[in-house]
């Protein structure tokens, strides 16, 4: 195995050196795509250009140059407005806006995704409750009903305490018969 000893920054240096040397092979960037990428805009075109920037030193240099050019160009625009006595436009705004718009859009998307996720969870919980609660209630009633058969004797006292329970009490008359039989026996 061939070991190469690098200093602390040699890999980056080597990468930059050779990606610049091979720059002539890469197609030159489109001005509009370069401006859009420098503004922080996201599109297929800027994605492709960013891939070129990653592998071509010339593209990386041009992108850095474009970003550095923005404040100077904004300053010139404002100076020309003053010299020509035109209403001052916010020359720096476009770049900032694009960046802020991209950031705001990302934040908005994150917030929307959170709300959507919350909504999905809420609907899921509601659906589960809706599915299981009636079944649970039925089961509870069934359990209560079946329990009543076995607890009919004990219920008699409490049935007298409530008018509505009398109906159920009436249904348990057969128990009285058994009770009577046992009493007689």
């Amino acid at each position, binding site marked *: 195995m061939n070991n190469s000893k690098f200093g602390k920054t040699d*890999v980056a240096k080597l990468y930059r050196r050779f990606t610049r*040397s091979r720059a002539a092979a890469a197609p030159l960037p489109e001005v509009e795509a370069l401006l859009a990428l420098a503004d922080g805009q996201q599109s297929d075109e800027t994605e492709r250009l960013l891939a070129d920037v990653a592998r071509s030193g010339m593209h990386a240099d*041009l992108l850095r*140059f474009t970003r550095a050019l923005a404040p100077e160009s904004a300053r010139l625009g404002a100076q020309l*407005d003053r010299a020509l006595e035109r209403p001052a436009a916010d020359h720096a705004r476009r*770049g900032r806006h694009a960046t802020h718009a991209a950031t705001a859009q990302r934040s908005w998307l994150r917030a929307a995704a959170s709300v959507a996720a919350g909504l999905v969870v809420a609907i899921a919980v509601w659906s589960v409750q809706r599915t299981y609660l009636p079944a649970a209630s039925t089961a509870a009633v069934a359990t209560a009903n079946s329990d009543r058969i076995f607890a009919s004797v004990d219920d008699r006292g409490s049935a007298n305490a409530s008018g509505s329970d009398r109906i159920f009490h009436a249904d348990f008359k057969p128990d009285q018969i058994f009770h009577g039989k046992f009493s007689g026996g």
Partner: protein
Amino acid sequence: MTLDPALRTRLHRLLADYGAKVRSLIDGHGLGQYGIDPADIEQEVRIRLWKALERDRNAAFHTSFIQRVVLTVVIDAIRAANARPVEALPEAVDDAGAAFIDPTAGPERNASGINDFDRIVGCMAELPERRRKAVALHLQGFSLREIGELSGTSEEAARKLLDRGLQSLRESLAVSGIVGDIE
């Protein structure tokens, strides 16, 4: 368009100042290594902006318009330089602009440099795309904030991608026989 002489002088001065800044930025970003002459660019930018002013003095000179003029001139100049059949590279190249073959390095070191570069690129190709992009932009000298802005992610997300990418790259390079720190 007729401009009063005082205004004409003032506009010329503004464009001259701007041209000087453009030239300084071209030098500062090492664009001269791609075969363009910063002085030519400065002059061409001034001429184009002056013509635009003459065409319509009421038109707003937005940042993007001015940038577009400069970038068009620069990219056209690089294209013209690439198209020239034989054009000597500038004699004095700084580190960033070192030629593909370093004449002072000797054949062995040059060959080793090319091999190492190819191995680095090979190891990077094994990384997942987002990590590879973060690592490549880092190696190209972009800061974490810039990587985040350019990739449409937060700085923190960019840092995570870069950390994981560099870790994987370090391991791959070690396997390939390249020992060293990438930071």
